[in-house]
């Protein structure tokens, strides 16, 4: 009897700690931010918490500037991510199937992993000028590497005994791919696709910030130039929320489709 009461109390304490502690931190941070913003005399750009929230409200609900910008930015993202997903998975599967191709790709994949893609942005500008094509190409560049690598690793890591088993039951190569290798590699492929999405979103932003501005990048530059700190911060928050939404959806999809792998 006493034990049961104690349990209830401790779960409540546990729950309140999980929620209250971060909230507490957020409140403290907010207060510090407010104090700092009020003491800023020279920099006009750091908004107060209040300014940021009102700007957030303004952006989301009145005037279509934010939504228009999101539309422009995401257009490139959608094209690029789809191409990167299809292309990346295909290349990854090919690299797993044809070992020589995989080995030839290895040094380039290593370089792509190590090197920041950002310096290639001016290059794309020189080649393709301003427009949606260079943006799409660059986002593909940002996103495709983890997709290729994870797809290939996923196929290679399918239990060799299961592959042998399939052979022993007379599976043809096509049957082996469709019924064993692809389903087996699926968790890794989904992981690669999720990482690729995260990098694609990053790429979308980087390209707009460093290239001629369109979309969100343009909005950010504009607000910085006109010293509208509240709108600047609010835009950043909105994009972060979009990223959060997309990636959470992806995670959910990943979880649901690969229940067997947990």
């Amino acid at each position, binding site marked *: 009897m006493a034990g049961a009461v104690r349990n209830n109390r401790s779960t409540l304490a546990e729950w309140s700690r999980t929620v209250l502690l971060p909230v507490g931190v957020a409140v403290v941070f907010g207060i510090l931010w407010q104090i700092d913003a009020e003491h800023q005399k020279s920099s006009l750009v750091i908004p107060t918490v209040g300014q940021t929230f009102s700007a957030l409200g303004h952006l989301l609900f009145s005037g279509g500037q934010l939504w228009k910008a999101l539309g422009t930015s995401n257009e490139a993202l959608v094209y690029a991510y789809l191409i990167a997903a299809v292309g990346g998975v295909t290349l990854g599967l090919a690299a797993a199937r044809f070992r020589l191709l995989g080995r030839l790709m290895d040094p380039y994949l290593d370089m792509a992993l190590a090197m920041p893609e950002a310096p290639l942005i001016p290059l794309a500008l020189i080649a393709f000028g301003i427009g949606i094509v260079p943006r799409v190409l660059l986002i593909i560049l940002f996103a495709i590497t983890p997709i290729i690598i994870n797809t290939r690793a996923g196929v290679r890591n399918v*239990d060799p005994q299961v592959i042998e088993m399939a052979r022993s*039951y007379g599976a043809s190569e096509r049957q082996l791919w469709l019924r064993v290798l692809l389903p087996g590699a699926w968790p890794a492929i989904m992981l690669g696709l999720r990482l690729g999405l995260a990098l694609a979103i990053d790429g979308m932003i980087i390209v707009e910030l460093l290239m001629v501005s369109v979309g969100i990048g343009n909005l950010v530059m504009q607000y910085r130039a006109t010293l509208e700190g509240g709108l600047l911060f609010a835009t950043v928050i909105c994009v972060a929320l979009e990223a959060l939404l997309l990636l959470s959806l992806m995670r959910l999809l990943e979880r649901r489709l690969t229940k067997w792998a947990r």
Partner: protein
Amino acid sequence: MIEIRGLTKEYSGRGREAAGVLALDDINLKIRDHEFITIIGPSGCGKTTLLKIIAGLADFGSGQVLVDGKPVTGPGPDRAVVFQGFALMPWADVLHNVTFGLELRGVPKARRTEIAMELLTMVGLEGFARRLPKELSGGMQQRVGIARALAVNPATLLMDEPFGALDEQARRLLQEELLRIWERDRKTVVFVTHSMEEAVLLADRVILMTPRPGTIKEIVDVNLPRPRGRDIEKTPEFTALKEYIWDRLREMYEESSAAAITTAVKA
């Protein structure tokens, strides 16, 4: 009938073992239909390799492997394998694992499900058809593996230390299950094992193999009556056979230790 004549296989892979030592050296063996054969021997004696060659999953250097007079060129519908690690597809449920071989052969869905459910009932897993492999114990997973092999109705079952990864209780239960299932059709079975009790309990004949090079040292007839149950282990005949096999195995271990010491001294 399975006939093996003069089968020889070299070790593959670079730098393995001493050069020129054979994985299998001049194996000759005849396995009659409906016979239950067990193969036992120390590690490295080639018993699993021999099984894989019969299954058509491994190639060999010289010699002949004939099934019903026809040479083995690869896996075939007349032989099905049960694997030590179960080799179940983790992404598919139990039912789909059992119907795997049938699916590959284009058997229509309704018939596949019928056969699979029949076999799952036979191995006692009819309530688990929709579960995933990870939800089953080791013993249950291997029963799925056995059901899968039986689903394609092979003439020969090839079993590669199928109970080696199980704890002792599961192993004993599955041995009894296997004896019971086998009585139904009395398929030809080639069963590789490490355990002397298992070898004698299950077999009509026990093949003893030695390593380096892999050869058949001796074939022991097991003339115990069938159908068999666990109680056969208490008979003096069983004990005598088991001890005999152990003595032969111990000789092999001692010989190979002596050989290892001589090689070490030479090196």
